[in-house]
């Protein structure tokens, strides 16, 4: 899965230009892209002006920021991806807002924005804002620090705040499209500044926690994933880190933001509700197979059912499926543990459990 979390959008962008960019991005191999709305001053009543695409029709646009609507909106990225498969010429389209941190009121209004957009990023410009973004902005508020590398920063990226941000789960965004924008209007030093800033950022983070995106304003600013990785490899980001920046790290941001909006306090998430018939079937099975263990029957059936449901999602760390099973169903690992304990207690003599 390849992600491009930044396709620049402004009110002057026409629909045909945008479709062009999205189609080309899909043909280059990106599976999911995010339309980015750069907001300098957040209005008190923010709205989401980003255009919607056919793959998103079934999800309702939340006008009121109620919790129910939230759940509907960012239902699940995977679900959206399923819908996107219907039209293979377009990638999955997410909506993203980037808030300039020079506007302190805007930062406070981010929670309102979060209900309107799928992803929220912050863009610091000064050292104070940068260290604030790295050390104090909570991951629930914004999970992406977007840096405009074409401007000269009046400070150095130091490893400590950068790594603090990365270890808290925030990611730095690097936009390669800014270097390709070498038209007549562009400042000739832009590319040099960009490269300098990038090298410093890579040095400070040692290449960890970087998300690569395009920030393409026109379709000609998009490049293939391999080309991008090579480009950054020349300027010092190792190729494997580069691939991470297009795939794993970007996916982490999307999934994190999704679970923040959907789940309970960003930790507990309902993935799937078991069908009623299925659960009864499980119980019946439990009765048949564990006929001897009469005592823990009901609990065991419940436990095993839950475990089966949670099994697919244990990697996400939802923690539901990790509950210790009731005494009726003992996992092999637990059996071994008990056996070991028994061995230790009884010294060298072999206990009966050895057989089982």
């Amino acid at each position, binding site marked *: 899965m390849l992600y491009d979390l930044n396709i620049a959008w402004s009110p002057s962008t026409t629909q*045909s230009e945008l*479709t*062009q960019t999205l*189609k*080309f991005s899909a*043909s*280059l191999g990106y599976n999911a892209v995010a339309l980015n709305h750069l907001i300098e001053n957040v209005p008190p009543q923010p709205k989401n002006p980003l255009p919607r695409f056919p793959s998103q029709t079934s999800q309702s646009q939340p006008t009121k920021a109620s919790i129910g609507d939230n759940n509907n909106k960012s239902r699940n990225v995977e679900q959206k991806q399923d819908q996107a498969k219907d039209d293979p*010429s377009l990638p999955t389209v997410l909506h993203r807002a980037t808030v300039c941190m020079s506007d302190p009121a805007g930062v406070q209004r981010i929670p309102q924005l979060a209900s309107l957009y799928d992803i929220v990023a912050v863009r610091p410009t000064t050292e104070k804002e940068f260290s604030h973004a790295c050390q104090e902005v909570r991951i629930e508020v914004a999970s992406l620090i977007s840096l405009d590398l074409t401007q000269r920063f009046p400070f150095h990226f130091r490893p400590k705040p950068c790594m603090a941000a990365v270890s808290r789960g925030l990611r730095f965004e690097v936009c390669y499209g800014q*270097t*390709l924008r*070498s038209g007549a209007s562009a400042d000739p030093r832009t*590319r040099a500044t960009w490269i300098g800033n990038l090298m410093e950022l890579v040095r400070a983070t040692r290449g960890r926690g970087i998300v690569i995106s395009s920030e393409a304003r*026109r*379709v*000609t600013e*998009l*490049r*293939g994933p*391999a*080309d*991008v990785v*090579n*480009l950054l*490899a*020349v300027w010092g980001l190792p190729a494997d880190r580069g691939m991470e920046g297009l795939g794993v790290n970007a996916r982490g941001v999307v999934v994190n933001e999704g679970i923040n909006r959907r789940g309970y306090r960003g930790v507990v998430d309902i993935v799937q509700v078991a069908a009623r018939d299925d659960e009864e079937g499980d119980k019946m099975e439990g009765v048949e197979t564990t006929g001897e263990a009469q005592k823990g029957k009901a609990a065991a059936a419940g436990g095993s059912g839950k475990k089966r449901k949670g099994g697919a999602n244990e990697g996400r760390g939802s923690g539901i499926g990790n509950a210790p099973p009731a005494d009726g169903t003992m996992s092999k690992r637990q059996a071994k543990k008990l056996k070991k304990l028994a061995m230790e207690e009884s010294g060298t003599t072999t206990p009966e459990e050895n057989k089982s």
Partner: protein
Amino acid sequence: MVRIKERYLLVNILYPSEIGVKPGVPDVVVINQPTTDKLTPQALLRGIRAEVGDTFGDFGSGALEGGGLQVKYLSNATSTFILRITRAQYRMLWTALTFMDHVPVRDGKPCTFRVVHVSGTIRKVEEAAIRHARNLMFAVKDQAGEKDKAALEAMFGQAKRTRQAAVVMPTPLNVEDDSGDEDMVDISDD
């Protein structure tokens, strides 16, 4: 014996800025449209050298001179070319290709260079080119097929046009020759 290690880059020229301009033509065909005949190997080399000089300065130009840059194959019909360079410099060359944004001829169209495959031997890069072209053919057929279904039989004209567009995309190197040979062998065996 020490041999000089080389890299072969298989590059496609893509034209993304014309998507949606011509209705009825599949996007794959538009993106991979033929390149102007004015693009010769010499012009291509000149363009690449200029871009490397622009990005890396004298150091880059010198490295490219020493690297033995060569155009091994250039097909305008499929917008495909193969470059050869010593291994030490290939990333520099690749970067220059990434930064190029129009066909390096006078009044060249805006385009994007996409490196499809990098390999150490020309045989592998040729295989990759054939594979890539074949996949492209399938993609075009798929897209044209979808349109056929949607258009139904009443719109024969349009369907035919997309078919023709698909046929315009010849495969590079000798894919068709290969299959033709196999057929011939089969027939003679019979």
